[in-house]
């Protein structure tokens, strides 16, 4: 019996028992759909974070106090920072470009404009930020080095903050009050977009010197350094770390590259996706056991048919192939339906929920292969049993 014939015979058998076939497939359908959705949400999250980290500015190196351990996913940052604004000069010397280094200190604060009041992130930074982080100003201008040196009370608003505080009005030249201190708005940043449903445009930038006085601190949270090229990133980050280590031998620093951040995030997300996919995979396994079970029932029910086929010249192999093809057909059709449902659900999640979902080309392909493998794995046992039936005994069964 040729492959195509076996396929047709199996299809007839499945069609003859529509409801049972459908219910058997359901286990596979649910399993495959669940795996597809979980994987697409995992991929979506990963891609979004990747684009956000890359969006921080290309070839970026973050210099932070404490240990950034990529192996253990843990960072034991000391309670108080050991970095000062003056350390920026040290780093600038290493890079050989003063404009490639920017310092940052941040905190949450109440920001008020007239009667509108918002709690938002206040970011202390310097004139190099727009260049280093690739964040252009949409209106007005960013503060200058002179503004930083003179601790001027000037502020640049994120596009969302500008909208919230000054709805429908031009904020340039207006006043905002941050933690009771008045600032003059000199610019609005270009829109950056959302990250996990949180707007990145809801923040206020002020000169770092002003911010330190406002928050009554003298620390710097981090330095961001822009490397001249992607190739120079690893070497430069090593040099930056070495420079700080030479200056402060008994303190720990980390020079973290985007690749490292991506690696850590990817690791966390990968683990999370794997765990969820494994849980979804269990339902696929249960579905496979269901297929095996139904195929065994089917073999018993069709004992006489098997006996007849053998009497008419079907070999053990013909009967085995017939039942195996039937099992594989059940799981692959179930797999295809599961893929369709999984893809549809992923698109719905992406559209209707804050979770991003990206369907990678390989996930339906792998899902299809897995469903076929489940059919073979769980179909072999019942099929062998069918193939080995003694035709004399099988024909006698009623």
């Amino acid at each position, binding site marked *: 019996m040729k492959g195509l014939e076996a396929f047709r015979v199996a299809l007839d058998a499945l069609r003859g028992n529509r409801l049972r076939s459908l219910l058997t497939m359901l286990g596979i359908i649910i399993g495959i759909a669940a795996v597809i959705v979980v994987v697409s949400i995992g991929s979506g999250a990963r891609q979004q974070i990747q684009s956000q980290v890359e969006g921080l500015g290309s070839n970026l190196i973050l210099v932070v106090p404490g240990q950034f351990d990529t192996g253990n996913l843990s960072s034991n940052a000391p309670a108080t920072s050991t970095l000062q604004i003056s350390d920026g000069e040290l780093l600038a010397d290493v890079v050989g470009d003063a404009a490639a280094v920017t310092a940052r200190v941040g905190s949450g604060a109440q920001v008020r404009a007239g009667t509108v009041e918002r709690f938002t992130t206040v970011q202390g930074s310097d004139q190099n930020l727009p260049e280093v982080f690739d964040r252009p100003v949409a209106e007005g201008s960013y503060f200058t080095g002179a503004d930083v040196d003179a601790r001027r009370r000037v502020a640049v608003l994120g596009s969302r903050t500008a909208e919230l505080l000054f709805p429908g009005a031009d904020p340039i030249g207006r006043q905002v009050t941050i933690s009771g201190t008045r600032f003059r708005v000199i610019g609005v940043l270009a829109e950056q977009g959302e990250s996990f449903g949180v707007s990145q445009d809801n923040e206020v930038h002020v000169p770092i010197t002003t911010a330190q006085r406002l928050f009554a601190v003298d620390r710097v949270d981090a330095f961001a350094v822009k490397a001249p090229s992607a190739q120079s990133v690893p070497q430069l980050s090593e040099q930056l770390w070495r420079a700080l280590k030479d200056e402060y031998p008994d303190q720990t620093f980390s020079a973290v590259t985007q690749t490292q951040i991506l690696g850590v995030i990817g690791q966390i997300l990968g683990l999370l996706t794997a765990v969820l996919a494994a849980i979804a995979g269990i339902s696929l396994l249960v579905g496979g056991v269901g297929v095996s079970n139904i195929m065994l029932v089917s073999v018993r029910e069709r004992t006489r048919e098997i006996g007849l086929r*053998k009497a008419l010249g079907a*070999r053990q192999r013909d009967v085995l192939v017939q039942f195996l093809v039937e099992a594989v057909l059940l799981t692959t059709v179930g797999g295809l339906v599961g893929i369709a449902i999984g893809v549809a659900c992923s698109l719905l999640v992406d559209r209707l929920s804050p979770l991003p979902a990206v369907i990678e080309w390989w996930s339906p392909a792998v899902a299809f292969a897995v469903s076929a493998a489940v059919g073979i794995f769980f179909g072999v046992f019942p099929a062998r049993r069918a193939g080995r039936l003694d035709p004399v005994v099988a*024909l006698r069964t009623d």
Partner: protein
Amino acid sequence: MSREHRTAERPAQHLAEQPADERTPAIEVVDVTRSYAFGSTTVDALRGVSFRIDEGEYTAIIGPSGSGKSTLMHLLGCLDRPTSGRLRVSGRDIGELSDAELAQLRNREIGFVFQAFQLLPRSTALDNVALPLLYRGVGAGERRERAAAALRAVNLGHRLTHRPTQMSGGEQQRVAIARALVGEPRILLADEPTGNLDSRNGAEVMRILEELNGERGVAVVLVTHDDEVAARAHRQVRVRDGLVERDSAAPAPAPAPRGADDDVHDDVHDDADDGAGVRRLGA
């Protein structure tokens, strides 16, 4: 391993018997036994049976239930192998064939007709009849053509796409006969073919079997407990307690106990000598 032992023992006897008849026997049964083990006890269903059926013969195997005739039928149908003795079907010793070879032998040489028809309920008459050809690797177009021809041969040309559930018992059995003859086998094994039919349909089925035997030269082996049905065959082989009690084609009646075969005389007709070359082997 006992099989090789036997064949080594027997060839001389076999060769000595063969030249006496020029026709190839369709079936040759020599001292066949078949035992079944049930736990520690063994049941001997056949205790040493010998006979021979030639091509184109029309034979009835008769016997009450428990006589061993079902076991014999399974052996003749190559569905089973003898425990000892030799059974040749179309010249091939079935004790020496693998399962796959037996399947092929059934497929090419034997057509089955069962008491309960044994049709696939969800398949059309055409698909049911084409089934043996499927396992012979015949292409779909040819299968259809030959199945349709076989159905026309049993006067069911108008029922090609009907399913068994849409047909009467007589029609279903005719579909089964069409299925048995579609592969043009040398032997047609009919196990109580009229058992589930009323007398009118039973007669029709018998008429078709006789036609096949007469016109196509198919050796028909009828297994039945019904003497009336058996009487229509040209030869009767009566089985009892795992032995051939009486063979109407045998030159001399087997030394069966008197009185036990009173009814046999009624069944054995004057056509007992029909098969000129028919004789008992191993006697």
